[in-house]
């Protein structure tokens, strides 16, 4: 009998092209996603070496990181951003790669459009020059971020030299309480294991709290794997996965002469890890004990429940943690012991590849409905893709947000990293649904608190953090 294997091990074994003695495995890549910021130097490298793109048909590009989220019929005011997008346009044309340009109906954040178009499928290897590629692992794909040199490598060879990572299982026991979602689960895990807790590992998420998540919730969870240092995060594909994929544009379809969908599903069902499979490390988390989370510092692991207080650095476990906490509090301008619900915010950002899918906007809109945002707050909603935007508009969510005083924008990364004009001013404090609260991430001197979409929406209305479990829905 073959030895029992984890989901990761099955995918790994399936994609090893060869393993010449003394070198790492050469891993085949099924889908390569490309965006404007990490690719120009890779295409230049190809040209300099006189190399081509081996599989343009397995490569898909879009512009998301620095695109404006305001009226797209106007020229891009940032000349350098415009130049970078133009470079991608030219590179895609020259090498025959499909490019979802900024005016296309499919444009959006690369990790939102991949799943939405059905490009992301179970059992695949997926890479992109972006660390949040881990998002696609929600489908039972092995998906990870790479640097620009590796982007060039994949363009030229459709392969990557890879050292085999270690495996980690994270078992979420119990079920998530009402008002506590995938984002809180992700932050809870990072709070528990630390921002380097999974370094060198591929995480497989399991347990009831994970299995009962929707596909979009699973994407949020896998998205944040990188914030725990993981190479990738993944979840075994099941009926939820197949139901999400069925009928999507690039998913397999049954035809008269080939039952491609049936064949694919039959294969996908074999991917779940074997029961006896062993992991290098197993972590348990009590999902039932989680609460809506708010980060207080400048690292996603610096997180407490909304009912909690800003911790006292003096009580940190190690000297390094104490210094990190002190520096974070100085940057965040917060005093130890402050009640989280007493922290006022002036900006709200609902967006990013973590939390800008339709369910995120639906959840936020349920909170917002019938309310106006606090006068002191400037809030915006940036849908993850044009498709999300269209669906939200068809459901009337844009009206709910606009009536409350939110700005309703075009799709892109926007204030998740502030490469376009959407940034925080120095000293501004923001409730953000994105994934990184690093110093200056959303703008120099800006202070970011990571929260779920519902928590961000409620903060916009209250003007400070508030426990959505007590929310008075209208």
């Amino acid at each position, binding site marked *: 009998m073959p030895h029992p294997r984890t989901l990761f091990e099955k995918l790994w074994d399936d994609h090893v092209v060869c393993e010449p003695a003394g070198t790492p495995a*050469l891993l085949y890549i099924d889908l390569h996603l490309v965006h404007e910021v*990490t690719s120009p130097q890779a295409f230049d490298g190809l040209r300099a070496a006189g190399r081509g793109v081996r599989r343009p048909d397995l490569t898909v590009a879009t512009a998301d990181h620095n695109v404006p989220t305001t009226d797209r019929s106007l020229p891009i005011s940032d000349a350098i951003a415009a*130049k970078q997008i133009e470079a991608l346009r030219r590179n895609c044309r020259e090498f025959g790669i499909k490019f979802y340009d900024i005016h296309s109906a499919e444009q959006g954040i690369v990790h939102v459009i991949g799943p939405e178009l059905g490009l992301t499928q179970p059992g695949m290897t997926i890479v992109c020059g972006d660390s949040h590629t881990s998002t696609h692992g929600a489908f039972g794909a092995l998906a990870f971020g790479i*640097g620009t040199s590796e982007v060039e490598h994949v363009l030229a060879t459709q392969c990557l030299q890879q050292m085999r990572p270690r495996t980690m299982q994270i078992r979420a026991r119990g079920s998530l309480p009402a008002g506590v979602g995938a984002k809180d689960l992700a932050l809870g895990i990072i709070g528990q294991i630390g921002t380097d807790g999974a370094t060198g590992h591929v995480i497989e998420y399991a347990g009831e709290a994970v299995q009962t998540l929707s596909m979009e919730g699973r994407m949020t969870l896998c998205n944040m794997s990188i914030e725990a*240092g993981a190479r990738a995060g993944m979840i075994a594909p099941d009926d939820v996965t197949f139901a999400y994929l069925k009928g999507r544009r690039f998913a397999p379809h049954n035809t008269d002469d*080939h039952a491609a969908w049936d064949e694919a599903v039959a294969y996908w069902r074999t991917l779940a890890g074997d029961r006896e499979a062993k992991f290098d490390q197993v972590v348990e988390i009590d999902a039932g004990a989680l609460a809506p989370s708010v980060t207080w510092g400048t690292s996603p692991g610096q997180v407490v429940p909304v009912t909690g207080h800003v911790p006292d650095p003096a009580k940190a476990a190690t000297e390094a943690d104490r210094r*990190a906490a002190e520096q974070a509090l100085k940057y965040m301008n917060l005093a130890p012991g402050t009640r989280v619900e007493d922290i006022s915010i002036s900006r709200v950002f609902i967006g990013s590849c973590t939390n800008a899918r339709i369910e995120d906007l639906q959840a936020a809109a349920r909170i917002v409905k019938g309310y106006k945002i606090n006068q002191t707050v400037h809030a915006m909603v940036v849908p993850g893709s044009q498709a999300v935007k269209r669906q939200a508009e068809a459901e009337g969510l844009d009206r709910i947000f606009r009536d409350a005083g939110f700005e309703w924008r075009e799709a892109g990364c926007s204030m998740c990293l502030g490469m376009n004009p959407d940034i925080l001013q120095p000293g501004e404090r923001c409730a953000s649904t994105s994934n990184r609260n690093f110093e200056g991430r959303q703008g120099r001197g800006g202070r970011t608190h990571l929260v779920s979409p519902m928590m961000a929406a409620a903060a916009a209305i209250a003007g400070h953090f508030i426990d959505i479990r007590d929310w008075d829905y209208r």
Partner: protein
Amino acid sequence: MKAFRTHTGLVAPLDQSNIDTDQIIPKQFLKRIERTGFGEFLFYDWRRGADDKPDRDFVLNQPRYKRASVLVTGRNFGCGSSREHAPWALADYGFCAIIAASFADIFANNCIKNGIVPVVLPEAEVQELIKRAKELPGYSVTVDLESRTVKDDGGFSASFPFDDFHRYCLLEGLDDIALSLQQEAAITAYESRRPQWRMTHQASFQK
């Protein structure tokens, strides 16, 4: 990739853990489409105070560390974004090796691709190096990839792990794409084994 055998250079101590790539090179410099010229933007926000003037306390602004080429720093260095602009900026500034108790995966990989050696040493030894770099003017170390050791003139000596393959690539300055292309036959054979229903974007797109 750029070759690396051994390097002796001035050590700059940056005693902080979890330094992310957003700090190493802030996003406003990611719009450049070249690989070069990022050095002047290294740790841009930290090098300037709130008033936009150079912050004289920041380690790289101190005259004594001006020509540093070895960085010693806290654990989980390079976490966050996969931007290769971070090692480009470090290399362009003049850093050849970085010593820390641990590195984020993608960052360490990106360093190797750019001829920077990420040296992992136990926390206590990292702290010892930081101490010496702070106390001894002109303190420098030798990072020797061939013997996988870090040494100074004052008796410090430590060996570090480095996998054979990447060590070989760095020592020889190998082009890893060329190396993979030597497996052309195996890649083609693999492609012929892939199931038909596997997505090919363009074929479906043109339908």
